[in-house]
């Protein structure tokens, strides 16, 4: 593969991850939101693989496989399981309505491009140019986390935040030392499993995962 073709694929994968962020912010169906997360996870894996090929790191290709399994397959399955078990399929009344969320999303993307210019300036390679998109994905995840009320959507928001960081990591450094990648993936998987159990407990205690009910503890 020539470098030109490789970078076209890279741009496509990076762009796809941003689109997935917007899809998650736009859709109300929880299964659709989780699907957007899975596609985003796969595109992060593609970015990792392309960067591994470009830099000639075998390690990064291993990391790409790890990302694909954890972020595109295992975690989405766990989340779909939670949806079926809690019998909640829709984000009925989001805290912030959909058009406003999308506008806020566009605004944060602009902010991400402004904030990312220092990083691009250090190393103006075609890969580093994608870094602001990674930051934008992070911010979209953050919006999802604060604008939505269901447990599953909040977890998806957290995971998109994490995907954004992973994109920045792969684009700037072609992968971290393998021990950090492994530890990070394990932590992420465990965090999702913990949240899944907690979501079940919330349903048992409160009847639904509407997180607006969580207001007992305050001063």
């Amino acid at each position: 593969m020539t470098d030109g073709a490789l970078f076209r694929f890279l741009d496509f994968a990076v762009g796809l991850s941003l689109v997935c962020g917007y899809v998650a912010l736009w859709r109300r169906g929880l299964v659709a939101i989780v699907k957007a997360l899975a596609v985003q996870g796969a595109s992060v894996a593609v970015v990792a693989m392309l960067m591994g090929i470009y830099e000639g790191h075998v390690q990064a290709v291993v990391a790409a496989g790890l990302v694909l399994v954890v972020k595109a397959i295992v975690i989405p399955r766990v989340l779909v399981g939670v949806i079926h078990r809690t019998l909640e399929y829709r984000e009925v009344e989001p805290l912030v309505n959909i058009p406003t969320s999308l506008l806020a999303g566009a605004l944060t993307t602009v902010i991400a491009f402004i904030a990312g210019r220092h990083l691009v300036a250090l190393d103006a390679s075609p890969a580093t140019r994608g870094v602001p998109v990674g930051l934008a994905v992070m911010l979209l995840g953050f919006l999802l986390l604060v604008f939505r009320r269901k447990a599953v959507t909040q977890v998806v928001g957290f995971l998109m935040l994490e995907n954004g960081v992973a994109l920045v990591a792969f684009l700037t450094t072609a992968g971290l030392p393998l021990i950090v990648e492994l530890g990070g993936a394990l932590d992420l998987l465990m965090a999702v499993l913990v949240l899944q159990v907690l979501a079940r407990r919330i349903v048992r205690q409160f009847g639904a995962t509407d997180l607006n009910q969580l207001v007992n503890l305050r001063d």
Partner: protein
Amino acid sequence: MKAIALSIPFLPAVAGVIALSRWRRIASWTGVTAPALVLVGGAVLGLFVAKGEVVEVFDGLVRVDALSAWMILLIGIVALIATTYGVGYMAAEVAQGHTNAKGARIYYALVQGFVAAMLVAVSTDNLGVMWVAVEATTIATAFLVGHRHTRASVEASWKYVVIASVGVTVAFLGTVLVYFASRHGSGATMRWSELVSAAGQLDPGVMRTAVGLLVVGYGTKAGLAPLHTWLPDAHSQAPAPVSALMSGVLVSVAVYAILRVKVISDLTLGPDHLRVLLLIAGVASVLLAGALLLAQTDYKRLLAYSSIEHVGLMAIGAAIGSRLAVAGLLLHMLGHGIAKAVGFCASGDILLASGSTRIADTTALLSRRPATGGAFGLALLALLGFPPFSLFASELAILRAGFAADMGWAASLTAAGLLVVFGAVLVYGQRMLLGRPVTETSWGSDSRATMVVPLAGGLILVAAIGVWMGPLQPLMEAAASVISS
């Protein structure tokens, strides 16, 4: 030395595995042996590294310098108090029907995993591994916070996991950017010691973003205002020994991470870059804790807000950054850790006896529960900085360093905040210890010896350190010179 440094995090990990096995009788006591051995190992390492030596294994995967040894000692002491006390506490929880034998097994295993993760975080040179370990502490404590399966504890653990994980993810981005900067400096590395020696070659623009993200991320985990909102919920809902570990050491481990970042930041960007951020967060934490303590009705939340106050003080010590301030900060970590552990453990006993966490329901403690009531009162006095407890010396050192470094406004605001905390805690503490009993119901017999002895030991230790540092003195000075150059 290498073998000791390497084995330290494994001791609690092994004890955790044993806790999951079927040998229930020995499980609780191996859980006490592990921190005791960690403490012995930490002491041996401490004597060695106090002379300026560094123990390194596997290319810095494990690296113990004086600062790490100081943290290992702190973790060892607090874990020993919490686990010894925890044996009786869990037996009582099972007896009262709040949990069952399986719940107790999981509890013992998770506590050991939690301690192991903290030990990894403080004894590695790799910033990435440190990050992995800090995130692992969140995962290990998630179920511990929600141990009782009540509405309040489920709510607290959800908020805790979501907010802490997001915070730590932000710190991960910071770690990635530091790696990126090093790649374009003197060669890609995540090792703290290499980053320190190559600090001059790191790109300031990238580092400015990276350091900000790292401090915000680990600051969330430390409970610095305004990122503290999860802390009072999680620390007040967790079982007492876990609250002791979270308040006593976990917040200090997060501050430790900030200190490591600060060394690199000071060399690359100059000391003023982080100073403003840490000073604002620190003073805000102290003032906020003071304001929210004034109208507190729950004694476990009272202790939690006191932790926010003390983390604020640590941040202020780090911001000042002079030798005196840093030494004060390290001593404060140790004193606060032990005193807060005693306070939370004693509060757990009060909760077991009374079934309520409201201050109004738990009056006349001194006559109804003399041993733990007395320990609770003395722990509060220690936390307020009464002599001879070591917090007196460390708070004074931090404030004096503030005035000496021309940060008089911050030191004055801090002193005002401390005064408010002082008044509030004294009033509520006095009401709990000496107030008129609301009901005449008896609380049954006094607590078990295994629950009282660690509390008494902790209090004696804080007072002893306040009077005479002994062999801790050279270690503290060596650790302070790691941070303040």
